[in-house]
């Protein structure tokens, strides 16, 4: 990074702090009656100084680190529809300095996070062999500073006592017993810094993918009971209060939901970050964001693919999964043909079955 760019970022940081300080007295919500003042967050992170070398240094978690028990001020969250990443399980957390909060940016927009906000996502597997134990692989971190998102990543040590900063990228084999009782194997990919930006990019700038109201409007079981996530965020001072009611996407695994909506939800979280007007692959015709897939053309129905792969006449050819590029690409592990390109090295069989069922019941023919 050039010196001038560093200077600009530093200046932006100062401006952000000034703005924050000015806003502070007006916007701090006093604790409601009967609500004890929250304890001060023990989190140790000054983004101006950059990320720490060890995950433990941040004090995001208390007790045994691998238990990921959040300290005060660190809130767990979950998505209605998570990205499929080789069956890895994920635990997400958010933290912000006391003085700032995120702003609502539309039901489908990313929450407008303030400088200082930290998003954490720990990737892990259960019933890992040998030993049938939980193995934490990596804790990915995005933090906002200077009006931009930055990446850090922490790779867990073999002892599972701490995780060490590493943005170099690597692979690690994982073998586990799935919930289906079968042994699974993957060569799990821990991304390099530039690799993070392949998916986490919007309008050419780094950006989170998941935290949009439509994918967060679900209940979550907190230590003190079940609450709607966005309401909890507002109550905890992470989101400006008084946001409009969020309209959730369907859960793609909800067999009672309409089939096409389930498909749309799956495509949104797994494909929409690249296949959108502001995404990395905006030059291809598909537009997979939840709001855009009400248009069949954006789903690729009867749209001819740009790339020629044997026999695939349309992105989605009604009743013909065998002629549908979408199905072909979700159904191959060939690195240069599979979709999503990153984060998946094995087939997501359950999703494939849903996609096939959906294609089968579409109305042919294409013009």
């Amino acid at each position, binding site marked *: 990074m050039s010196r001038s760019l560093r200077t600009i970022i530093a200046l932006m940081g100062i401006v952000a702090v000034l703005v924050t300080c000015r806003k502070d007295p007006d916007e701090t919500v006093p604790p409601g009656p009967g609500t004890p003042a929250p304890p001060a967050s023990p989190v140790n992170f000054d983004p101006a100084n950059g990320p720490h070398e060890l995950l433990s240094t941040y004090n995001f978690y208390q007790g045994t680190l691998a238990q990921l028990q959040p300290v005060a001020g660190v809130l767990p969250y979950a998505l209605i529809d998570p990205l499929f990443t080789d069956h890895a399980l994920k635990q997400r957390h958010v933290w912000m300095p006391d003085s700032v909060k995120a702003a609502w940016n539309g039901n489908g927009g990313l929450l407008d996070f303030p400088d200082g906000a930290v998003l954490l996502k720990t990737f892990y597997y259960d019933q890992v062999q040998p030993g049938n134990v939980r193995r934490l692989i990596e804790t990915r971190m995005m933090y906002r500073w200077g009006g931009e998102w930055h990446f850090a990543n922490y790779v867990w040590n073999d002892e599972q006592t701490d995780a060490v900063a590493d943005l*170099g*990228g690597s692979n690690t084999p994982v073998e586990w017993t799935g919930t289906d009782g079968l042994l699974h194997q993957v060569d799990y990919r821990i991304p390099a*810094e*530039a690799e993070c930006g392949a998916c986490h990019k919007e309008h*050419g700038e780094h950006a989170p993918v998941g935290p949009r109201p439509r994918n967060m409007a679900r209940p979550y079981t907190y230590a003190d009971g079940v609450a709607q996530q966005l309401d909890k965020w507002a109550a905890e001072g992470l989101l400006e209060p008084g946001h409009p009611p969020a309209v959730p996407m369907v859960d793609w695994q909800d067999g009672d939901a309409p089939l096409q909506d389930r498909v749309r939800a799956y495509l949104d979280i797994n494909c929409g970050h690249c296949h959108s007007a502001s995404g990395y*692959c905006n030059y291809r015709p598909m537009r997979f964001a939840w709001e855009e897939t009400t248009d069949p053309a954006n789903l690729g129905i009867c749209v001819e693919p*740009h790339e020629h792969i044997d026999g695939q006449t349309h992105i989605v050819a009604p009743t013909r999964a*065998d002629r549908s590029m979408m199905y072909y690409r979700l159904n191959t592990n060939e*690195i240069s043909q599979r979709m999503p390109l990153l984060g998946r090295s094995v087939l997501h069989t359950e999703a494939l079955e849903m996609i096939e069922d959906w294609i089968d019941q579409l109305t042919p*023919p294409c013009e």
Partner: protein
Amino acid sequence: MRNLGPLLLAAALVATVPARGQLTCGTAPLIADGNHTVAQVTGQPPPLYCTGGANAQHGMWYRYQATEDINLTISTSLPENAGVDTRIQVYTGTCGNLTCIGGDDDGGSVYLSVAVVGVSAGTTCYIVFDDRWDDDGFVFNVSSAPGTPWENGPSFTPYSASGHNALGVVDMNGDNMDDLVSVPGNTQVLLGLQQAGGGIQSQSITTPQAMYMPSWSFCAGDINGDRQNDLLYGGGSGATFMIREQDGTGFVQQGFPQYIFSQRTNMVDIDNDGHLDAFVCHDVAANVRFMNDGEGVLQFIQGGLGETCGNYGSLWTDINNDGLPDLFVAKCGCDAHDRMLFNQGNEVFTDVSAQNGLLDSHQSWSAAWGDFDNDGDMDVFIGSSTNNNHKLLRNDGNGNFTPVAATFPETSGSIEWTTHDFDNDGSLDIMGGGRILLGNGDLTFTTRVGAVSNGPVGDLNNDGFLDYVNGGTVHYNNGNENHWLRVVPLGLLSNTNGIGARIVVESALGTQIRDIRSGDGFRYMSSLFAHFGLGPDTAITSVTVHWPSGVVDHFVDLAADTVLVVLEGSTISTGIDDTAPVGPALHPNPTNGLLHVGLAGEHRGGTYRIFDAAGRSAMQGRLLTDVIDVSGLAPGTYTLQVTGVAGSSRFVKQ
């Protein structure tokens, strides 16, 4: 709804063939122009898939006899077939020995097919409809129009090279014939060695475990100068080199941990020091080059050759005719501005993208670079990856480009665009998007509709016509009457492959040029030999090889249909009678220090003289042993004469 009555009636009248004759090749009924009906696809499957693609279970067979030279159209794209999914294969030959001449899968409406083939007078062709997609019945139409059979350009016959899902077609054993190279697993390289008498012999070589697989691209060249081609795997998380051991038995890996989302890879002598370097397009960050220290040890360097993301199709060729390989990068996605960088030497590059109209967000994964108008410079077809909006630019000879008004309505988008002369007519053709654009030699093209799939290109049956490989199938060019020349460069001062050499061939047809390249198109590695089509010319006026070292070799009055092996510096005039009988048998050649003269003992004690490339005396002495120490000579090409020995011998000091 349209009145289909007459059509169906016509079909019923014409379809008077034996009920079950269509089930095999041997019983295929003879049919004429008109409509014919297939009740269901139940017969023997085709033995060859001219269309490419997965095999079928069944087929229905028909014969057609041409009484004059015709273009024959076989179509299922008829209204009454709506909802049916057909595929067509077309052959000539006999049932035991069929040759593909065409075929089609989806060239008609939706899943219907239209195959167009050229058939010579007196030839019988076989038409097979297969059930890859479904076995439903349909009506098909056959119609002929007079025309020359080659009007539709080259045709290919597929041959299943089982297991050889080749990424490369390149000579791997130094016999001046192209071989197949595939990487079936992360500890294996599989060679398909072309045999002198025909056929391909498999050789499996165990490699160290590859850090990355060639998932995105593959190229080859001799990195360490031992005349064994080494391999570069372009993977999604990085790039790694498999350096072939000098005895050819195995590979040593030179891997790099740095993250690269590899796209096109190339080997090229970027700094013109005589040793191959390498280049890797990075999808999500600045491009990477690997610089050779002269001993085959590579250094990872990122930056300086394209700083932004979206790098897909790099190609190194001499764009401005200054003798140095320049860089073009086809770009797409996050920074869809193609880059053209002129090589100024010493790893200094000048960006000339803007003045050549490349900053227009044209979405491209590769570009085909060749002299499409045979005027002595490299023009470019920048293929669109999204639609038929391709760009064709004419080079003025100095690397200034002007757009050529040309449209390619019958093409589509494609990530692969390469150029070769597939019909040996002396005009470069373009392969991409399932089509061949037949070059007319004047920056115009005729689109040949027919299924071809991009893959590595080379001559895999040594017949002087370029073949290609796709998905484990070798597509052998059926050839024609045209003539050809293959030039095999053997570098001495330059890199051993002669990558970056400019080869100029003159014949009655005109002047043609090729640059030796490692890595064109998007993914594959095509032959390191220069292939020229010569049309009707049986004689070649001259062949000139401009080596990266600056050495120029010149040949005159050659016959066509031959392989010309050019050892760098072998035609340099020394002022000495080059036509004299063979002199001493020198080795090693090239040499770093000691030169064995290879003369019997009676010449010991005699004198010798060594002349440089300009004919000046560079060294002289007495031959006390059979060995001369030439370590004091500057690198270059020299000639040795020994007193009392007829003739002279050339050698290269490295």
